[in-house]
């Protein structure tokens, strides 16, 4: 109770708005994905978009909006670490091997209905990535699925650090399809590695140029004639930010050799890979991935859809996790994104991952991979109230999402959705 009051005070303090009544989900099984584990007959209390209390003995204040959780399961909102949802126009800027200057935040489409559909699958945050056309692609956007906002900027997960897409193997070397136009360098894996090295050497020279300029500005003093600043280059600026640890690298990868090569390259050049994406052969080099400190965001059981995906096994997630890698399960697909809870269930079947660990792979682990684990990824007091309320345990084949909350706001409500569908006039085709 003391803890409850303290947290409530912390959260309510900065709000200048008239206090909204709190929301309480009561009587549910709460899968906290925290050290508190699962709580039977529990209550989650939400105020001003934050979770203020979780437990079996939480008192619901008078005037609270109560959501009956009897028979239901509440889990942290699902986080998809690999998405291309809500992108307007091309997902790839394919014209060059390095396009670090382009930003997904420029092309977010807040009206993409897939946002809503994914809410119906309990997803509350997604990592919207540039495509895998080039060795160094564009900057990604971490979004909260606040369906209904009119300004795309309102979807952006404000606390999330910046990130960027890298890609290795067949896609950047453009080996598994016939790309239009003249062939673009690189056409081999060694070429991909060389492109990345070259780009960062150029970025280092660019950083030196600016450092020297700043020295000259200092030397000139406040009264002297300042030297002309070097040309700002948005591409190199981004690469410098990677070197300075301000931008997280998410590297599309399949084969173990290319994974090891990128780790070596990153350590040589002085940057970190935050996640390997897809990483279907990650099980072969899990120790190396763990040692670098990178996470791995993989599929549960997709494979053989191209040559470099042939050596995949459904035990990949389990093996990597057992070697100490932070593992998440992603969708890379508007369709699969709606059923990520079943993707997590599969790793219980393949590899006997514990229920808690499997849940983590679609919540806390991807939150860590995107650098937002302080705010989301588990049901704990003080965190943002991103929650999914299921009709049954999310790993059950019967499970359906009943409610999805983002920042404490109900963004999907199955009962309301059904009522609206029933009330809507028949579509034009249904005569």
């Amino acid at each position, binding site marked *: 109770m003391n803890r409850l009051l303290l947290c409530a005070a912390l959260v309510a303090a900065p709000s200048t708005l008239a206090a909204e009544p709190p929301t309480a989900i009561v009587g549910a099984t709460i899968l906290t994905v925290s050290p508190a584990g699962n709580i039977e007959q529990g209550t989650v209390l939400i105020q001003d978009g934050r979770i203020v209390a979780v437990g079996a003995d939480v008192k619901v204040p008078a005037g609270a909006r109560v959501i009956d959780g009897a028979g239901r399961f509440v889990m942290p909102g699902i986080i998809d670490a690999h998405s291309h949802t809500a992108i*307007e126009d091309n997902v790839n800027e394919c014209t060059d091997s390095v396009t670090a200057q382009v930003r997904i935040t420029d092309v977010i489409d807040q009206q993409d209905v897939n946002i809503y559909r994914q809410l119906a699958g309990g997803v509350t945050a997604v990592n919207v990535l540039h495509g895998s056309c080039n060795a160094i692609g564009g900057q990604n956007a971490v979004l909260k699925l606040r369906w209904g906002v009119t300004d795309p900027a309102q979807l952006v997960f404000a606390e999330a650090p910046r990130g960027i897409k890298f890609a290795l193997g067949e896609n950047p070397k453009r080996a598994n399809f016939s790309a239009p136009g003249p062939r673009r360098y690189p056409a081999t894996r060694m070429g991909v590695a060389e492109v990345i090295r070259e780009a960062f050497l150029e970025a280092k020279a660019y950083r030196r140029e600016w450092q020297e300029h700043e020295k000259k500005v200092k030397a000139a003093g406040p009264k002297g004639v300042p030297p002309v600043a070097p*040309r700002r280059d948005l591409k190199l600026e981004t690469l410098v930010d990677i070197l300075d640890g301000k931008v997280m690298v998410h590297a599309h990868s399949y084969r173990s050799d290319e994974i090891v090569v990128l780790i070596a390259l990153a350590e040589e050049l002085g940057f970190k890979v935050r996640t390997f994406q897809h990483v279907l052969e990650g099980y072969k080099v899990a120790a190396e991935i763990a040692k670098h400190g990178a996470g791995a965001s993989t599929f549960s059981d997709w494979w053989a859809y191209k040559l470099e995906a042939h050596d995949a096994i459904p035990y990949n997630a389990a093996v990597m996790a057992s070697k100490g890698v932070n593992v998440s399960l992603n969708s890379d697909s508007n369709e699969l994104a709606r059923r990520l809870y079943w993707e997590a269930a599969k790793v219980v079947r393949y590899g006997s991952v514990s229920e808690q660990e499997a849940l983590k792979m679609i919540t806390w682990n991807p939150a860590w991979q995107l650098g937002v684990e302080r705010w989301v990824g588990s049901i704990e007091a003080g965190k943002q109230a991103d929650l999914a309320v299921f009709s049954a345990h999310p790993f059950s084949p019967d499970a359906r999402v009943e409610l999805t909350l983002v920042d404490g706001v109900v963004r999907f409500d199955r009962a309301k959705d059904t009522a609206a569908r029933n009330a809507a006039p028949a579509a034009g085709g249904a005569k």
Partner: protein
Amino acid sequence: MRSALPWLLLALAPAAAASEVIALVGGRVLPVSGPALDKATVVLRDGVIAAVGADVAVPKDARVIDAAGWTLTPGLIDAFSGIGLPARAPAGGGGASASTAPDPLAAEQDALDRIKLADALKARDGGVTTALVVPAEGIAGGRSVLLNLAGETTEALVWRQPAALHLHLSTLRRQYPASLMGTMAWARQALLDARHAQAEWLAYERNPKGRPRPAYDAGALAWQDVLAGRLPLVITCTRLNDIRRALALGEEFGVKVVLAGAAQASEVVDLLKKAGRPLLVTTNYDPPKAPSFGFGGGPDEGTEKAQIEAAEHNPAKLHAAGVPFALVSAHGRDFTAGIRRAIERGLPQDAALRAVTLGAAEALGIADRTGSLEPGKAANLVAWSGQPFAKDTKVKLVFVDGHRHEPEDKPAGPPAEGRPRAGASEEVAR
């Protein structure tokens, strides 16, 4: 007295103003700047409007034109036009550049250099006297020119050159930028490069000793005009979010942005009111589409139909919301049909007329010299056989700088791209 006149003309060096005095007598006059006048007279002298009113005396030296039964309006201004330019590849949404197209990323190019005089002058047949001619191709296909459609040479038509710099939020194929995010990044870099080039030259001119000569960059110079506020940056918006993108870019670099196209503008009225600048709103409701590269393909037929429908209602909604705008052809083939469609979709007649005359002049910053029938303004005028833009109304006479043009009496021109559709006439009655 007579012999002194040629001297005077030379000294004033007017573009090509007609030295004639013309009085249009007995017509219904819609000055746009004021209330309609029945059986009124308009006097044009030396290319300028001399008098407008119901009790204006006809000067003795005037050539009198009986305008009884006609409606007289200011000349139409198409503030985003393709007149006189060669046919183009689909733009405003990507697509390959035609072989005749200029460099898609060279803001320093001038539409003026590609205008064919005879083609440009054809626009008068529809009552257009003034046009901002905008290169359609590419991302930054060049600067526009403001023309008044009277003269023997292309140069003689020029009213303002260059008039604006243009950025289309479109994409290229097989060439950077081939994505919308690339286009945004390209535009940012272009503005940064312009700033940098300016700083380099400034430092060099201040103290050239010991400095290498900076590179000459025509593109950077063109963008510098935008940075310095000498030229407006007109950004073509084809998607709803393009409006936000355009405004954000303007804010990021502190430049004056004019929104063009903006078929979904009525969905973001508050944003536009805050921006407080007239828009150039398209009447080309169904422009040719570029192939979609989006993740999951382009819109289905139903969605596309809804989009066209929404674009047609856009002007009426903007008007109702009190957002100032000009209606523009946006490279559509039949401007009149586009205006008529906006009226059919609820835009009041007088608002439509204003949006292609005084409203357009305001959007272009030329309302002090044209856009309404007021003494002192350019003698740009259209005489219509009836209600302007109505289906069976004909343009009887057009005056540009006082020069008379009589459209050939011919059947209506080719229909606009896909418009107008059958079945629209019932709504006219409403």
